[in-house]
Each structure stands twice: as C-alpha cells, then as structure tokens.
C-alpha cells in the first residue's frame, strides 16, 4: 500500500472537523475534569514535596530528636550541641475550673527554646514569650479553647497545678490539624511537671530531647558512634532527613491515593469518550462508505477521523491541565487539616506535561475502540445500508486496543500504587465494576425488549422502548452514572456506617465511660464514687506493663544480627506491653486457635493468649516461647492461644493476656468501665473523679463519637472533594450523551408530532425515558455500593453491615432528578420547534 497522503488526510480531517467541532468538543469535555483532577493533585504533590524539602527543619523543630519512654539521661552529644531542649509528653485530663469541664489532652512539659526552627504560633503573638518568661503559664491549643469557651488569662488545671493561659496555640511545627483534633496540646513549663503529680506508674510518658547543632554539621556522621548504645537503651533518634523521608512518604501515599481517585474520574471520562466516539462513528458510517466508494483506502479513512480525535484530545488535555493548575490553588485549603507544612502553589510544568500526555493518550486509546469500525465499512453500504458487522469480534486490532486499555489501567495504577498486586486488584475492580454495570445495562435492555407489556400506557411503553433504540446510550450512561454513584455512595455509606457503629455502642447494656491510669491505692475510692451513683462497674481491669526480652530464645541483640527474612520485628522488642490477666474471654473476644490454659493446668508453665492480628503480623505460632520482662523480673511464657479481638468498642482490649495467678503481685494500675445514664451524669462523674484524682483519665463515649465525627468530617470533606470530580465527569458524560442523542430524538419527535402527538405527549415520553435512565443508573450504582460497603464492613472494618436506606433514597432521588432536569433542558428546544423546521435541517 502506498504511503498515506498526509496533506490530503489533514485537509479532509479539517473539512469534517469544521462541521463537527461542537460535537467533538462534547466528547473531549468528558476527559477535561479527570485530567484537571490529575494535574491538580500531581502539581500539589510536586509543590508539597519541594515545600517539605524547604521546610524540613521546621517539621522537626530541631536538628535531632531523641525519644524514649523513660527519662533520657545526660548524653555525650549534649556538649556538641549549640542548644538543647527537653519535653515530656503524655495524655492526661485537664480541667477548666471556671466551667468545671475537663477533657483528655496531650500535656507537653517543655524546657528550653524548642522549637529551634519555626515557632509556636499563638494569639496574642506575645503568648509564646509570656509562656517562656517563667511562672505557672500554659499555652492551650485553639480547638480546646473553643470547645470550653476559654479566654487567654483563664485558669487551666493540669494535675494538681493551676496555670494561667498565656496564649492560644494556633500551630505547632510539624503538627497537623488532625493531630490537634485527636489530642489537643497543652504546653506547660517543665519546672512544674513534678508538682502536677501526673507522672506515675503506668502513665504512658514520652521523653524527648531536642538538639540544634552548628550549621553544616553532618548529623548522621555525628550520631553514628552513639547509635548502638541508643539501640540498647531503646532510644529512638530522629533527624531532619528521617522526618523528611517519613513525612514525604506518607504524603506520597496520600497523593497517590488521591491520584487514584482522580484516575477513576478520568476512566469514567474515558467511557464517555468511547461512548461519544461510538455514536460519532455510527453517524459517519455512511460518509465512510462514500469515501471508500470514491477510492479512499480503509487506512486513510481511519487516519482522517483519528486526526480529528487527536486534535480534540490534545485540546481537552490542555484545557484539563490549565484547569488543574488553577484548581491546585484551592487544594491547600481543602487539605489544610492534613498538612504539616505551609504549601506554596505554582505551575508545575512536569505535572502539566504529564496531564497533556495522559489526556492525549487516553482519548486516542479509548476512541480507537469504536473508531476501528470505520476500517470494516464496506463501500457496498452506499447501495445497501449495513447490518451489524460480525467481523468486529474477530478483528485482532480491536482486541489489541482492549489489551492496550487494560495494560494502561494496570500500568497507571502500578505507577500510583507501586505494587503489581495492588495494581492487578485495582484493574480487576475496574473491570468487575464496569462488567457488572454493563451486564445490568444489557439485562435491562433485554428484559424491556422481551417483557414490555403491550397493555402499558403508550407514553410509558414508548419511553421504555427508547432505552434500546438504535444508537442508544443506555449502557454507557448506566456505566458512567452508575460507577460515579457507586463511588460516591460507597464513601458516604461507609462514613455513615463508622459513625453508626460508634453510636450503636451507646445502646442500653454497652459501657460508655472508661477511667484509666487508676493507681492501686485509688481503686477503692473510685469504685465507691461509681457505685455511690448507683452505677454498675462493668469491667475492672488490672494492667501490668512489661517489655519483651526473648522470642524462642532470640533476644534483641541476636535478632538484630539475623537476616531480614528470619528476624522478628524490632518494634516487638522495643514496645511496651500493657497486659492484663484472667482465665476467661470477654464479649469482644473469641478464641481463634488453641485454648486458654489456666496456671497449673500443664505443670508450672505459663500460657499466654495473643491477639490473632498481632500473632499473624509477626509470624508467631502456638507453642512459641516468649520471655517478658516484668519490672526487671524475667517471666518465661508459651503461646497457648490466639484470640480475635474486636477493637472498635468501648472496652479494654489486650494484645497479650496472662492467666490468673502470675501477675497479681506485680506493680499495676487499673481501668474501670461503667455505663452512665446520660451525658450529664458522665460529665458529673468525670468532673468529680478528675477533681479528686487528677492523674486519672476519663473518656466517655460521647467524646469518642464527637471526635470520630470530627475526624470523619475532615476526611470525608477531602474524599467528597475528590468524589466531586467523578460526579462532575458523570454529569458531563450525561450532558454530552444527551446532546449526542438529540438528533435521534429530533427525528423521533418529528415522527411523533407528524402523527399528531402534542408537545405534552412528546415531553412526557422524554421525561419518562430520563426517569428510567436515571433510575436504572443510580439504582445500579447504589446497589453496587451497598455490596462494596458490605464487603468493606465485613472484611476490612469488622463491623455489622447496616444498609443506609435513607441516604440511598436521597442519592437515588438526587441523581434521577438531575438526569430528568438535564434531559428536559436538552429536549426543550426540540419540543418547542415546529416539525417542518427540523425536517429542513434548521433545528
């Protein structure tokens, strides 16, 4: 075959393009939103990475931080530092005496000039200096101030000591809004820590020492000689580079996840592209036959239309990239609660290039699927209209394009997820979801065609019959609107489900108040306070803290020397275990393997029970030997059983459970769980206990639900923002599908009106058709999302599935209503024009 005459092909493409520009713009609109989302997220990620680089020192606030759960003694590097600061932080109740209210917070006792980089931003600005000037002053996180309506100058009680609030903390280096929601910080001077009386046995305390060194000091080199010693003492050293890496990594994960959501929006758009090009091609078949008749080769015909698609794809990709670049300006606001650094916005040419190439590539790839049909058009179609072309199924190029699409989806998700397995999972999910929705569409059309009763009213029958008219968009609309609905409603249902689960825990017989860090001498008095109010003590749990010495004879040092695939997690040796003892299971536990073996049942060996997830995560087996270090005393145990533990209820749940008779004499503290009748009673008992025993922390379920709601709202705002792209794409695909099918509708409208149907009847038929289309698409999506929520509830979150019928109904009505309104707006012009005007082609 001779070389294609590109000049002529371009000329023909331009001639055709001229008359089709508005229709081609429609198909391109489908990918604009997806590309915009990808470019926005990618630009934001690029900028964030460079901001993390630039503000790395502010993330840590120092050049080096040493962390341990016991006081860090003098260190040899103290003398090498220009300056040092110390912090002791722990969770504790603080009280606002003015209102009598109290809440669990993160208390941070500070000594020295931390942060050395960045600053504690306060209102008033002088608050920080005032706090450091000495005296019983505190800085309180703004979320806490707002919650208790506190003012600067008010008094806050931390343990036994009352502090004056010197400033409202706006931001702390390296801390995000989410951290502040979970554990709002209260800074107090280190000098008064002991006086508070809060650091007692069982308190989970973290000791930090901050260092700043001379500029250009190689920190890694500096700390190298001390690392072995710190390892033994379980001191963790964190440098600016470490922090940069971990922050960068977590944001890369976030950015990749968001890109994946954007990618789903883009894929929805791609379905729109394929669907629009499909209709475009069907309408071009007659012209293709004429061109073939006039002697144009099948390759050249394909190239004419492919060139048009290329130009429009490029246009859509550029438009999407520009929109995406503009969109990233609002992303720092959307993600404000998650960002540890201040993000600058600007054009990222790398992301723009990425967007343009991706947009161009997907438009061509997805358009090729329907476009390949033009190669098979016989010139004979000029004399006799063609019937369905069975050659399509056998066309190897078509299968090559389908393979190309699958490889693209896999490749793109692999690039974002960094795991071949996850990428296969994602591709599988996309194919499955599209397959299900495509199947639903096919099934509905088949059922309507097969079972449409003749006795139905004409308008209803005609509207239903329209679902399978030639060139219909039923399947593509069900796939795009359905998938968009499925995504949004799954997120929505899941969020609802998590909240419902938390609220469900608040039913009659479930505990709703938890008191912890109770010292043994305080136990009886606290119990009296509870029972004195006619409340039942639902659980009284002793807790002993311990560390792990050996697993199957391998101690920490030996474990370090084992190869990576044989050793145990270093974390297992470093962490502190909070352990209780009993010979029975509680409501939130079920036995998964082995049995609970009481002391003395098998000689004098001690058999402990481990939570299944912990055991599985660390490759531990029944019968393994574990030696614990209980306050300096080694205790050898064997794993006797694994328990499935439900961690999402107000209860004390433990990774390690000892049998009775071993730990009774060890130093311990206690947890008491009860159920109050209402929030007021919870507040009263909380206030009474905290007033008398400031070291005891009290959490009531109301606060947990509130915090969870707050966090979920923040997360869901981000997720909904991202889901918006899918909705927007769905709407664009819907609009373009409606406009594309407008010409079809015009012909039907003419026929109906020529036969005497009034505009009311035509309008009713159209509205009913949109109603059926919207209903089928949204219902398919909602049912799919119910299935997804059920799967996620059962297998990921370990919750009972409670279908959100109300929310489902609202979504169904909203999406169906939107389809009807858009359809009506699109059809209005056709209905109001005289048939003759449309016949003449002026419509």
């Amino acid at each position, binding site marked *: 075959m001779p070389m294609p005459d590109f000049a*002529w092909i371009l000329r023909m493409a331009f*001639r055709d393009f001229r*008359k089709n520009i508005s229709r081609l713009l429609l198909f391109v609109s489908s990918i604009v939103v997806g590309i915009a989302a990808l470019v926005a997220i990618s630009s934001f990620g690029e900028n964030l990475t460079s901001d993390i680089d630039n503000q790395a020192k502010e993330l840590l606030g120092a050049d080096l931080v040493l962390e341990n759960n016991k006081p860090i003694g003098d260190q040899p590097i103290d003398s090498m530092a220009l300056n040092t600061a110390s912090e002791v932080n722990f969770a504790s109740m603080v009280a606002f005496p003015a209102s009598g209210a109290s809440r669990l917070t993160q208390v941070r006792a500070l000594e020295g000039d931390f942060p050395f980089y960045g600053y504690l931003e306060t209102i008033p600005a002088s608050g920080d200096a005032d706090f450091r000037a000495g005296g019983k002053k505190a800085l309180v996180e703004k979320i806490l101030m707002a919650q208790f309506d506190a003012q600067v100058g008010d008094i806050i009680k931390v343990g036994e000591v009352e502090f004056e609030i010197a400033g409202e903390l706006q931001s702390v280096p390296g801390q995000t809004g989410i951290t502040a929601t979970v554990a709002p910080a209260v800074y107090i001077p280190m000098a008064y820590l002991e006086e508070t009386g809060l650091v007692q046995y069982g308190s989970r305390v973290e000791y930090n020492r901050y260092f700043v060194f001379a500029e250009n000091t190689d920190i890694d080199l500096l700390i190298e000689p001390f690392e072995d010693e710190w390892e033994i003492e379980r001191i963790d050293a964190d440098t600016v580079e470490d922090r940069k890496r971990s922050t960068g990594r977590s944001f890369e994960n976030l950015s990749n996840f968001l890109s994946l959501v954007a990618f789903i929006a883009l894929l929805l758009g791609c379905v729109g592209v394929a669907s629009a090009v499909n209709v475009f091609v069907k309408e071009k078949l007659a*012209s293709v036959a004429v*061109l073939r008749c006039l*002697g144009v080769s099948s390759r050249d015909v394909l190239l004419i239309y492919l060139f048009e698609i290329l130009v429009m794809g490029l246009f859509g990709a550029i438009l999407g990239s520009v929109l995406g670049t503009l969109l990233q300006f609002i992303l720092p606001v959307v993600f404000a609660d998650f960002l540890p650094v201040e993000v600058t916005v600007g054009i990222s040419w790398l992301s723009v290039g990425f967007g343009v190439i991706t947009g161009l590539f997907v438009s061509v790839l997805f358009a090729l699927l329907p476009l390949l049909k033009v190669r098979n058009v016989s*010139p*004979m179609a000029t*004399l006799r209209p063609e019937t369905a072309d069975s050659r399509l199924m056998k066309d190897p190029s078509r299968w090559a394009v389908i393979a190309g699409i699958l490889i693209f989806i896999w490749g793109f998700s692999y690039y974002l997820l960094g795991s071949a397995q996850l990428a296969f999972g994602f591709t599988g999910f996309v194919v499955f979801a599209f397959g299900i929705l495509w199947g639903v569409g096919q099934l509905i059309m088949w059922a309507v065609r097969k079972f449409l009763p003749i006795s139905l009213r004409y308008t209803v029958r005609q509207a239903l019959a329209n679902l399978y008219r030639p060139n219909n968009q039923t399947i593509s609309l069900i796939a795009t609107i359905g998938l968009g609905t499925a995504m949004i409603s799954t997120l929505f249902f899941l969020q609802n489900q998590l909240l419902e689960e938390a609220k469900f825990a608040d039913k009659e017989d479930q505990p709703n108040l938890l008191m912890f860090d109770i010292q043994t001498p305080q136990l009886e008095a606290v119990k009296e306070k509870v029972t004195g109010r006619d409340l039942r003590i639902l659980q009284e749990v002793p807790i002993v803290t311990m560390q792990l010495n050996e697993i199957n004879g391998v101690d920490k040092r030996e474990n370090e020397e084992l190869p990576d695939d044989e050793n145990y997690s270093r974390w297992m040796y470093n962490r502190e275990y909070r352990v209780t003892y009993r010979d029975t299971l509680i409501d939130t536990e079920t036995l998964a393997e082995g049995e609970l073996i009481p002391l003395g049942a098998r000689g004098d060996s001690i058999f402990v029970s481990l939570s299944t997830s912990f055991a599985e995560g660390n490759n531990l087996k029944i019968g393994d030997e574990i030696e614990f270090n209980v306050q300096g005393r080694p205790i050898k145990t064997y794993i006797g059983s694994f328990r499935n533990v439900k961690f999402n209820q107000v209860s004390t749940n433990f990774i390690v459970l000892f049998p009775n008779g071993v730990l009774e004499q060890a130093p311990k503290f206690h947890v008491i769980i009860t159920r109050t009748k209402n929030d007021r009673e919870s507040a009263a008992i909380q206030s009474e206990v905290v007033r008398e025993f400031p070291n005891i922390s009290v959490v009531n379920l109301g606060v947990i639900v509130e915090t969870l709601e707050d966090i979920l709202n923040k997360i869901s705002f981000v997720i909904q923002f991202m889901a918006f792209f899918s909705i927007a794409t769905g709407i664009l695909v819907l609009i373009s599908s409606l406009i594309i099918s407008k010409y079809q509708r015009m012909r039907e409208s003419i026929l109906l009106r020529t036969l005497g149907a009034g505009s009311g009847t035509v309008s009713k038929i159209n509205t009913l058709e949109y109603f059926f289309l919207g209903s089928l698409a949204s219902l398919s999506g909602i049912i799919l999302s119910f299935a997804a929520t059920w799967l996620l509830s059962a297998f990921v979150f370990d919750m009972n599935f409670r279908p959100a019928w109300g929310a489902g109904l609202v979504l169904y009505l909203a999406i169906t209503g939107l389809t009807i309104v858009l359809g009506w707006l699109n059809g209005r012009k056709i209905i109001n024009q005289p048939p003759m005007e449309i016949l003449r082609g002026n419509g």
Partner: protein
Amino acid sequence: MNILSVKDLSKTYKSGSRSLTVLDQVNFDIQAGETISIVGPSGSGKTTLLGLCAGLDSASTGSVQLNGQALEKLSEDQRAAVRNQDVGFIFQNFQLLPTLTALENVMVPLELKKRKDARTKALELLEKVGLGDRATHYPTQLSGGEQQRVSIARAFANEPKILFADEPTGNLDTETGEMIEKLIFDLNKEKGTTLVLVTHDTELAGKTQRIIHIKGGKIQEDAHA
C-alpha cells in the same frame, strides 16, 4: 474492446445454516462507450450485480474484469484504487459527504488522484451542471435535484472509464428527474464514458443502447434497443 466482462458470476449470502443465492451464474460483456441498463423487480439482484461490477463487493464465485483487471484477485484497498482511477458513481440518495461543501465534494476524487488543478476542475464541472453559484453550499442547503447534480459533477470529476448509476432519478420529481437524465446522457456523450444504469424506470432504460433484464438472480433477457 470490453470495458467490463462478467463471467459465471454468483453471489450467495450465508445466514447460519441457510444460504441465499442472489446472483446465479451471470455472464455478459460491456463494450467501452456503451450505455446499458439493468432492470428487474425489487430483490432481483440488480443492485448486487452493480456492486460486484463496480468492485464494491466481492463475488462468491465467478469473475469480473474491469478495464482489464480481474477484481476478484484484488484486495479491498486495491479495488478502492481501481474505483478511484476508472469508476464513477451516481446514487439514488445522492451520497454527498454532509460535512463538505458542494465544491469540496466534487474535489475529493480529483484530490485522491493528486490533481493540482482539483479546485479549478471541480468548479468547471459545477458550472457545467449549473451550480457554479452554489459551490460553497453544504448538501443540507441544496435541494434534492441540486444535490444530484453535485453528485453527477463528482462522478465525472475523475473522468471515469465507466459510470455506474443506481436509480439516479428515483428520489426526484419527474421534471427534475428528466433534467438529471439529460445531464447524465449529455455528459456521457461528451466524455465518451461507458454508462451502467440500474433502474425500475422503463422509460429511462429505453434511453440506453442495451437493456439487461434480471430476475431471481439470473439474466432473463439481454437486448439491444
């Protein structure tokens, strides 16, 4: 000299286990410059015969020699090249490209032949069919008769050796139809083109030198007028 030679031509369509023979062992030759009509009732196979003779479709058995080339030995794209070089078409429903103006429609065959004077030549032809002033109009802006005149100009543009016309007046009123017939025959005479007409219209068929009657896929009569 034969411009078209049809030998033992058959066309059978298969649908599942059933097969339908539309043309059965058809034989005839057409001399260069001859005008010929193929007539017959609906479903007799005349459109199929036209499609096979013009190289729009391939036969089940038999052969078609068009200007010395055996079409059954050519691929679809090679047949397309033959159509561009030697064949012109006029259709019942005009088959103009809706996104091209009248002038551009006429230019396409010339451009495919890489003629530098495509535009001038196309304009000349439009003038000849009386549409010089409608050159920039799109098909939807033209009446049926005007569209068919553009189609005729396009058919003659590449100076084909043979012109196939499928019911060229079938979609037009009598007056316009007569005008189109005259145009076709005049141009045919002027250019010395071979003309193969498929029609129901016996009056139109009577204007050609030879009439082939076809029924049930077989030639019933092949008579010179």
